[in-house]
């Protein structure tokens, strides 16, 4: 699992990622908040590699809970909200054990400080991603809530001179039933801060949860329906100007010349900033900046990638897979098993570059002065943003203040800091604060893309048609090799192979190889469902091919391989039952299935897809069964799966970034299309009750839907699609 490996990176060798073995003293301290209330400082497990080595003085908290005199509970948290519901589900964990109403909990963005706020599941990077938030804080946040409650009860008992055991906490108060006394948390907070931190606290049993497992209302919704939410793009520091930019259309190109006379003449344009590889127009408003940008005459030196096309990249990847790569998994004896197989099945697959296209275009506001720099941005890696701004501006880290904001869609794009660097480069030439806003065209053409992958895969089947050998080799970019270099070892990283190795299926002889091939000049980055976005498509499509070769039903074929994986088998069977698998469908309509275990979550999907005579594909209905362990907020789980499915269908039907003459060919939502309301299928989500620890929910729905759709197309038409996106021309009836 990717997460275990990243956790061990953060923890250092030989340390268990479990929080159970940690002494209370080292993971939590209590004290008096600056405001006089109770302050709990938490050290989420393995936020940095020195946690265990540190003595008591070296305690490194990375999350803070304050209980104020007015009873408010304020959580300073290292995760950002970008639609996934974290700002509701994490407060639910605290509120559950603390016995307060959810609405009493308020969140503050953590300031950039990797030492304090590093994410144990992201190799210690202060980041939000990889569907990790709930998994990282599930236990420590509840423990903190329970400890705070215990200390508040102790403070009340001391004040009343009664046994703490005769008191209980409820709805933000401590009550002493025998005498009918009560005290609000706010009144007790200062006293509680002086109580001893309990050595052990008992956490609630799931059957006693009153909040966890309920569809609690999201805390961030009201401001998002009345227009008052301030996203990064909405900040307006006094005196702010607006800039937009043109970057070299070819990656790695440079500005040769700029004629800015016409641009400068545009009303509202203040300044043209010329950088090595970009030109920005600074204006009073974006209308003038865009008009100025259109009036610029820029000549570019295209540089070494001027003739690059997608075809070149595909050829390189294809060629690379003719050689052996780093072995990601080797189980049994693949050669012997393949030699003994009755039937052999082989196929090549490929997936394209994809842009993120979050609805909030890339933007970053900066005020660069000689003695300091201020940055306003919505970003998933805020400490990196601060470091990048400091380096670019040539300032010490403590002279850079970063304000993080709600994010109008992340999907991996805001795990990068290229936009911050660019904004600071521009801001260095501007006296006022300047908000740099990418046009949609710049956002799509200068994204950092989900990598292109090329796969060769083969299997040997026995006389019953069941797989006895599974051989998979693929080539493409390693994002982690750039993003977190220590995670790339011996030619492998845990993300690129996630979903291709350690499959849920019983495959006695299995061999998987990966070849790192970086596309020249093209930046690659995480994209919703990351490694599995590629691997699950290949694995689940190919499993479908094997079922077809064996002339067996795709669900029954998979079931037979899941005897040792009861949770996987259960979601498959639940999805099949709810979807009416096997029931008759009209001509041109098919059902396709997929199953996966990634991000700690078991998930099966069945898509019902209609293919018209002209090859047009319509996804009519999707049934999803999910076992993500204990569910914190079932409505958020449903919302994330619904959204992830729409995101995946968009990629399956339309998603493709192509290059010609070194330039990205897609520009805006007309050439990089999104699924729309009239194309959205009915989606049914069935959640399996479970007592297992929570799995990730932000991403799994995306990787699972793509093969479910292409498998359904196979069922409807007999045509197997091995290349994304779906090509309607291939599906036209003869």
């Amino acid at each position: 699992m990717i997460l275990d490996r990243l956790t061990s990176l953060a923890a250092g060798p030989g340390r268990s990622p479990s929080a159970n073995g940690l002494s209370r003293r080292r993971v939590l301290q209590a004290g008096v908040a600056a405001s006089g209330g109770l302050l709990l400082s938490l050290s989420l497990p393995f936020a940095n590699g020195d946690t265990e080595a540190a003595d008591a003085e070296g305690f490194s908290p990375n999350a803070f809970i304050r209980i104020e005199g007015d009873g408010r509970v304020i959580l300073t948290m290292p995760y950002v909200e970008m639609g996934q519901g974290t700002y509701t589900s994490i407060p639910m964990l605290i509120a559950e054990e603390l016995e307060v109403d959810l609405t009493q909990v308020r969140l503050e963005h953590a300031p950039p400080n990797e030492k304090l706020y590093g994410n144990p599941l992201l190799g210690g990077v202060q980041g939000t991603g990889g569907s990790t938030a709930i998994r990282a804080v599930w236990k420590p946040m509840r423990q903190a809530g329970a400890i705070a409650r215990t200390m508040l009860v102790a403070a009340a008992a001391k004040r009343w001179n009664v046994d703490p055991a005769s008191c209980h906490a409820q709805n933000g108060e401590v009550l002493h039933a025998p005498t009918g006394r009560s005290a609000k948390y706010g009144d007790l907070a200062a006293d509680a801060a002086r109580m001893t931190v309990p050595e052990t606290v008992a956490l609630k049993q799931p059957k006693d949860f009153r909040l966890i497992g309920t569809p609690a209302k999201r805390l961030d919704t009201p401001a998002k329906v009345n227009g008052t939410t301030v996203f990064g793009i909405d900040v307006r520091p006094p005196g702010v100007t607006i800039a937009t930019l043109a970057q070299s259309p070819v990656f790695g190109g440079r500005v040769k010349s700029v004629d800015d006379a016409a641009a400068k003449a545009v009303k509202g344009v203040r300044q043209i900033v010329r950088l090595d590889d970009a030109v920005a127009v600074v204006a009073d408003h974006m209308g003038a900046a865009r008009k100025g940008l259109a009036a610029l005459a820029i000549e570019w030196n295209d540089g070494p990638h001027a003739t690059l096309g997608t075809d070149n990249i595909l050829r390189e990847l294809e060629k690379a897979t003719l050689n052996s790569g780093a072995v990601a998994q080797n189980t049994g004896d693949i050669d012997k098993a393949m030699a003994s197989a009755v039937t052999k099945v082989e196929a090549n697959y490929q997936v394209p570059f994809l842009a993120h296209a979050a609805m909030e275009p890339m933007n970053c506001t900066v005020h660069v002065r000689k003695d300091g720099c201020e940055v306003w941005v919505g970003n998933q890696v805020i400490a990196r943003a601060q470091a990048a701004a400091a380096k670019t501006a040539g300032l010490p880290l403590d002279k850079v203040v970063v304000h993080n904001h709600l994010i109008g869609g992340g999907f991996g794009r805001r795990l990068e800091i290229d936009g911050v660097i660019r904004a600071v480069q521009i801001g260095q030439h501007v006296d006022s604060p300047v908000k740099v806003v990418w046009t949609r065209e710049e956002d799509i053409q200068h994204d950092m893309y989900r990598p292109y992958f090329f796969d060769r895969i083969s299997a040997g089947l026995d006389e019953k048609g069941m797989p006895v050998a599974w051989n998979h080799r693929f080539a493409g970019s390693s994002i982690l090799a750039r993003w977190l270099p220590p995670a790339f070892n011996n030619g492998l990283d845990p993300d690129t192979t996630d979903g291709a190795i350690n499959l849920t299926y019983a495959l006695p002889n299995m061999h998987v190889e990966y070849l790192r091939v970086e596309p020249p000049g093209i930046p690659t980055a995480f994209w919703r469902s990351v490694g599995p976005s590629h691997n699950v498509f290949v694995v689940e499509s190919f499993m479908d091919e094997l079922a077809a070769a064996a002339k067996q039903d795709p669900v029954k074929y998979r079931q037979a391989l899941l005897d040792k994986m009861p949770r996987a088998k259960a979601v498959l069977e639940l999805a099949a039952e709810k979807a009416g698998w096997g029931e008759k469908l009209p001509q041109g309509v098919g059902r396709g299935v997929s199953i996966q275990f990634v991000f700690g979550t078991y998930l099966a999907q069945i898509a019902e897809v209609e293919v018209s005579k002209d090859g047009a594909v319509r996804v009519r209905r999707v049934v999803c069964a999910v076992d993500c362990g204990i569910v914190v907020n079932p409505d958020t789980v449903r919302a994330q799966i619904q959204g992830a499915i729409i995101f995946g269908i968009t990629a399956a039907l339309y998603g493709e970034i192509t290059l010609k003459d070194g330039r990205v060919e897609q520009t805006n939502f007309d050439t990089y299309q999104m699924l729309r309301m009239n194309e959205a299928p009915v989606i049914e989500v069935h959640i399996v009750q479970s007592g297992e620890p929570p799995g990730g929910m932000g991403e799994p729905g995306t990787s699972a839907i793509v093969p479910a759709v292409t498998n359904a197309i196979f069922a409807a038409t007999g045509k197997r699609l091995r290349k994304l996106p779906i090509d309607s021309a291939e599906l036209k009836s003869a």
Partner: protein
Amino acid sequence: MAFTIKVNGVDRIVDVDGDTPLLWVLRDVLGMTGTKFGCGMALCGACTVQIDGVATRSCITTIDGIGTSEITTIEAIGATTAGAKIQKAWLDQEVVQCGYCQSGQIMSASALLASNPHPNDADIDDAMSGNICRCGTYLRIREAIKQAAQT
């Protein structure tokens, strides 16, 4: 040159070129950032406002073409009957994820409901398919519009 436009019932004077899109006048000149930029080409609907009650993409609506028409934005749509119903339904159905496109979605949905109190699925598709939601909240938007229509 200076233009007088009526935004949420208030006359505002702005001094910009006549071909300046309303979106930037709202966001950058008047500081009303509830209306969002998404594409600049009327492809995504994030910038939707209402002009005389009609859902309109402010990113391609130039300031010199507005005249005395009444502009309503997300900041004031809750004061209309349809807008209030839609906002309540959005909360009840827990529509929102990242929320960035939702100003535009709510402006389109409110205009639909004001002109068609009982829209069917096809009406909803027609009115809402110009608004992209990258988080994929379409199912909940549809349910929320249906809920609002019943209240």
